[in-house]
């Protein structure tokens, strides 16, 4: 049953990227999005809100817009509205709504199981099934929502904690897929390096190497081939590796090249090291690739 759920999740993210990629063709949308972001960083919150609301009206299936709008509501300490808009965002996309519902059903079933152990009672295991979805659904989801979510929502007895007591932060998402040609500057170098560090942490050598430019020059004087060989050995040797990156500082960025400094914490079963790194990334037809890497 859980395996099914995983497949549904995979399918769901596929649907989303299709959807956004299609939307990204619209230059006008990209412009509107950038404008909303500009308003946000200029501190013109209510204008930014209006502009995201208008984006949502014309593109009701763009999750980034709901997310960023919710972040703005939170800035205004309006937790309730932030929550509503996030839920609306989930439900607006039929694929996501289905995922959300399936996930809820599974969590409820697991929670029932946990509660029955907590109180040593014999609860019948909940019946959960996940309906299979076709790929054709491009129209917005119907407004009629089903079972679990609405059940939980209806049963809600207590109001959400007031915004004074909880400080929440929603990280604004850059509209990555929009960043094809014109809006290179919005491309998240940081995100790419996080992905690079995840591959390293997972000791997935091939994936790790795929982040490097095919003309990458190792800083220690090794040949490219020698370097690849030594990386293969180094990544595989420890029992586990954990890389954490922080303090990103993009020194310079054009459409073609970016220079970024960051702090890297390397931990493995046998070694621990903190260093400051500088990387030069080049923009290729496959996206950003690491061209130079050195410790400062």
């Amino acid at each position, binding site marked *: 049953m859980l395996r099914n759920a995983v497949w549904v999740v995979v399918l769901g993210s596929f649907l989303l990227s299709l959807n956004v990629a299609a939307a990204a063709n619209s230059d006008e949308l990209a412009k509107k999005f950038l404008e909303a972001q500009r308003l946000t960083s200029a501190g013109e919150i209510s204008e930014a809100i209006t502009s995201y609301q208008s984006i949502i009206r014309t593109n009701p299936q763009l999750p980034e817009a709901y997310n960023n709008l919710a972040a703005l509501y939170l800035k205004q300490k309006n937790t309730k509205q932030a929550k509503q808009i996030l839920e609306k965002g989930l439900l607006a996309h039929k694929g996501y709504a289905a995922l959300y519902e399936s996930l809820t059903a599974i969590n409820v079933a697991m929670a029932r199981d946990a509660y029955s152990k*907590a109180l040593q009672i014999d609860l019948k295991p909940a019946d959960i099934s996940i309906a299979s979805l076709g790929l054709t659904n491009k129209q917005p989801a119907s407004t009629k929502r089903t079972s679990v979510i609405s059940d939980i929502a209806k049963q809600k007895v207590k109001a959400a904690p007031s915004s004074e007591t909880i400080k929440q932060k929603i990280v604004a998402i850059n509209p990555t897929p929009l960043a094809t040609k014109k809006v290179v500057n919005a491309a998240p170098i940081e995100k790419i390096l996080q992905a690079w560090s995840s591959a390293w942490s997972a000791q997935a050598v091939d994936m790790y190497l795929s982040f490097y430019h095919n003309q990458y020059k190792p800083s220690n004087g090794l040949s490219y081939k020698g370097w690849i060989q030594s990386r293969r050995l180094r990544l595989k040797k420890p029992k586990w590796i954990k890389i954490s990156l922080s303090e990103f500082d993009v020194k310079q960025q054009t459409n073609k090249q970016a220079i970024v400094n960051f702090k890297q914490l390397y931990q493995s079963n046998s070694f621990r090291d903190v260093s400051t790194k500088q990387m030069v990334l080049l923009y290729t037809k496959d996206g950003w690739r690491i061209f130079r890497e050195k410790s400062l």
Partner: protein
Amino acid sequence: MIVKRISLFLCLSMFFSLSVAEKNIQLAKVSNLENRYPASSGNVISNVLNKLETRLRAYPKDHEAELLKAILFFKSGKLNLALEELDNLIKKVPDFQLAYLLKGDLLLSKFTDTNNLGQTTLLASIIPKLGNKKRQQLNFLREEAQLRLQALLNNKKRKIWPRQILALGQSVKKALLIDKRANRLYVFSRKESGELFEEINDYYITTGKLVGDKAVKGDLRTPEGVYFVTSWISPNKLPAKYGIGAFPVNYPNELDKHNGKTGYGIWLHGTDKGYYSRPPRDSEGCVVLTNIDLEALKGEIKPGLTPVVITDKVEWVDYATWQKERKTLLQAVEDWRLDWESMSVNKYLSHYEKEFWSSSHNLKSWSARKRLLAKSKTYQSVKLSDLSVLVYPKENEDKKQIAVVRLHQNYKSNNFKSKMYKRLYLTKKDNSWKILYEGR
């Protein structure tokens, strides 16, 4: 991605913002948490997490520390870490009911309100069908969670010197200190130098069903006072509900008997199979530990030696106060010894309280006997060693203040020699400690 940065303690206090209050629970402190832990930040969380890690290093089976870690992760929005922690915990301790309750809440936290432990809408829809017993069981679990968490938070803030334990003899090494109201057992150790230190780990315990000091047989209360472990009873001689075994203590002690208290069979014991822990107030007067904790403590507890001081509420004091109390009591015993050696019977007898008693004497007959004996002495020497000094909690002004001193006495005179362990009960009269009871 949603990152919640939550004012932790505000949130923890909300976690228990209580409709638990159906029963006789002391909840007052919880509402104050807010004031005592002003809305602060990641720092506080990481401090507390560090503390829990320290506990786990000292005692890897500190499953409470793991549960609390999960709560901290949960309440600071790190749901995946919380779930991972709980799943590991459940794997190790598959009968930890509280861990399951938390897990249920955690799983629903993305979809529904989980500010109060065990009050999700799902649980609310299940519980009514199950009847009062289960409803009560749920409340017990919530109380247990609250007490465990509160102990962690209070430990950070409280003073660290217990007025109840002022000295431990070198043969004693460890003492157990129980706070009934906090449902907590603390362990103190003696350093080579004679100073005391508190062990890093303290333990959740279950005490008597009813609050208050024990007075009569069957009153379902845990006695308060200074006791000593008398023996070890292995599990094959006991019903299953005692878990991995039991350490009886000497209730009723000399003072209890003198005061007409009745009852017997006050033990420290383990937990029935199929349960990790029991509700906070669930025994008939015994002190119940989890089997895992009792197993860890077993080697430290020595029948005949280990003191168990049981209080309603431990008096935590600062070092200066503790040292002062310690010096005053040790000096009182030393003055008694000096005056005894000095051969002046009057001075010696001035250390005894009017209501003094021993196994066969009151003050009058004791004095007469001592005066008679004194006439035959030309020389006497009294050496004391291995002193433990334990103090009853000071509950109210009109109640007597009592201290118990256990010591080794080496007596020599021109016509008599003896070596023995003694127990003295002292009481504070007009600012000086007088002997109330003397016996072996």
